[in-house]
């Protein structure tokens, strides 16, 4: 217990030393540079340098956020607004970035924090090593060094003690020891205080969090719209298929059976011919219903889950497809279904548009995330957006907070990666 307290205090002292250097030096450097960069915006140069400086500042602040969590269990969330995914490149991108960063209130809070960090933050941090190290000077005085200083006319003060004799030098040593003991208890608290001060300024404010929630609500509203639209379209398709297909065939069958009933005695040959036709109709109605079921909820998916359903799907493809599955359990039915159809559409794309000869599908689940990669050796050049099938898949996954990423250089290969947060059971 004793040694661990000393150990913790010494570690906290070392961290305090580090933090004091970083907060003072980092504070001055970043504050001066940021103020200069922003001041030069009217001249044009600032537009280019501001994002660079601010990005550095964000890294500086993020490092402190990480240390706060690791060293003192002070959790500081990151408040910066994310950049939109389709940022322009080059000069114009930099201008956009500058604009977005200056609009982000977190930027201005970062700058305020720098001022506090290099003053109050610095003082709190430097206290931790000082409490431990000051004892050494007290003892150095007490061991005789006070005498030459005093004889040379120096009025040496140790804290509030005027050291003029061995007695007062001893007091200094005792005070130093006392401070050391205080440091043993106080040092971890000091470091935590330093981080708490940082949290006050660089954690998201309530209004920031509200804004984040509002964005989230917007996103959910949008994906819900998509989901509703998709399922409505799906229902219309099913209704039409039933109406034009199986239902019509059953009606035709009923009519044939009625005719057969009338003919069975007067014209048995004709009746027999119609019977064959009725049987054929019933078989075709079944085939159509079967295809319809496969389009709504594939039987293997219902019976075995995602892994085997994708394997079964691969077996029906005209292209050699390797499927690698590492799933311990099954996801919820809607997630399985979305993932299955996303894979199915991706595979169709690879065969139809990419002209692939080989396809690899990899399914696994780690860290609460279902990850699916579909790679093909086709001609590449696939892109999300522009009304492609891929944006349909993206919408499908969006309902479950899933994301889609496509890497498809012209000439191939194409790799489509999907991630859906979900738990397996």
């Amino acid at each position, binding site marked *: 217990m004793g040694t661990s307290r000393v150990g913790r205090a010494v570690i906290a002292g070392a961290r305090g030393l580090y933090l004091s250097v970083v907060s003072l030096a980092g504070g001055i450097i970043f504050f001066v540079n940021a103020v200069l960069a922003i001041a030069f915006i009217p001249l044009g140069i600032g537009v280019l340098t501001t994002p660079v400086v601010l990005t550095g500042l964000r890294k500086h602040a993020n490092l402190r956020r990480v240390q706060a969590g690791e060293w003192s269990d002070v959790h500081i969330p990151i408040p910066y607004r994310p950049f939109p995914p389709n940022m322009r490149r080059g000069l114009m991108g930099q201008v956009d970035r500058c604009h977005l960063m200056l609009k982000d209130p977190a930027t201005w809070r970062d700058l305020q924090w720098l001022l506090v960090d290099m003053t109050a933050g610095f003082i709190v941090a430097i206290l931790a090593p000082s409490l431990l190290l000051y004892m050494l000077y007290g003892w150095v005085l007490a061991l005789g060094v006070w005498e030459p200083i005093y004889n040379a006319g120096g009025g040496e003060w140790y804290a509030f003690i005027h050291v003029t004799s061995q007695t007062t030098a001893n007091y200094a040593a005792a005070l130093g020891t006392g401070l050391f003991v205080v440091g043993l208890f106080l040092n971890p608290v000091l470091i935590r205080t330093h981080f708490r001060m940082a949290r006050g300024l660089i954690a998201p404010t309530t209004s920031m969090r509200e804004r984040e929630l509002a964005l989230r609500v917007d996103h959910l509203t949008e994906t819900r719209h998509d989901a509703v639209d998709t399922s409505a379209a799906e229902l219309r398709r099913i209704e039409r298929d039933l109406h034009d297909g199986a239902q019509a065939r059953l009606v035709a069958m009923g009519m044939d059976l009625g005719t057969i009933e009338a003919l069975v005695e007067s014209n048995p040959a004709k009746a027999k011919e119609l019977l064959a036709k009725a*049987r054929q109709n*019933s*078989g075709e109605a*079944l*085939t159509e219903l*079967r295809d319809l*079921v*496969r389009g709504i909820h594939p*039987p*293997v998916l*219902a*019976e*075995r889950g995602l892994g*085997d359903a994708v*394997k*079964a799907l691969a*077996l*029906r*493809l*005209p292209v*050699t497809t*390797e499927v690698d599955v590492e799933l311990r359990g099954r996801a919820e039915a809607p997630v399985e279904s979305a993932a299955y159809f996303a894979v199915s559409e991706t595979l169709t794309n690879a065969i139809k548009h990419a002209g692939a000869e080989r396809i690899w599908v990899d399914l696994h689940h780690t860290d609460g995330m279902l990850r699916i990669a579909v790679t093909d050796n086709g001609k590449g050049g696939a892109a999300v957006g522009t009304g492609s099938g891929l944006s349909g898949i993206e919408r499908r996954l969006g309902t479950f907070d899933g994301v889609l990423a496509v890497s498809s250089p012209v000439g191939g290969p194409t790799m489509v990666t999907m991630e859906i947060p979900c738990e397996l059971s």
Partner: protein
Amino acid sequence: MRVVLAEDLFLLRDGLVRMLEAFDFEIAAAVESGPELTKALAELQPDVAVVDVRLPPSHTDEGLQCALAARRAKPGLPVLVLSQHVEQLYARELLADGTGGVGYLLKDRVFDAGQFIDAVRRVAAGGTAMDPQVIQQLLSRRSADQPLGALTPREREVLELMAQGRSNAAIAGQLVVTERAIAKHTSNIFGKLDLPVSDDDNRRVLAVLAYLDQGR
């Protein structure tokens, strides 16, 4: 011949019982769930089992699982699996142990009573009866590849029927040619596909399927 039948829909079960009885099969048991099927297979020692893939209580692939488990317990136990849909994945699982005596057919095949009964008898005798849909999927899947492309259309027809599990005599009957002609076609097919020649119907099918399976 004693049959254990497993089908959860009453209408279908009843229809199958009547059809099998009409063709002189003895129904040892007609059950409607997985556990009942497992029990019946263990206790009644039937000559053949006709099993629906999807059975209660799980309503997933319980029937298939029960059949596979029963075959592990008693290798070669003849099982004909019926399903609303056919999947190569399941066909492979049934054929995997290589002991024969398996069938996997779409439920609609019972519409043609003669062919269905023929399939049941073939499976009971240790042969195979694979649904044409499974075979067609397999064939179309490999059609672009050599040397399957080297087959003549007639040879492909013969290969398709052979892979379903039919004997030369049955194939000859279906294609309305002599058995000698079929024997010639089959030896050509075996030559082109580099398959070992075998007199045994069941081994013949397994060889075809193994060939179609390779290189995946």
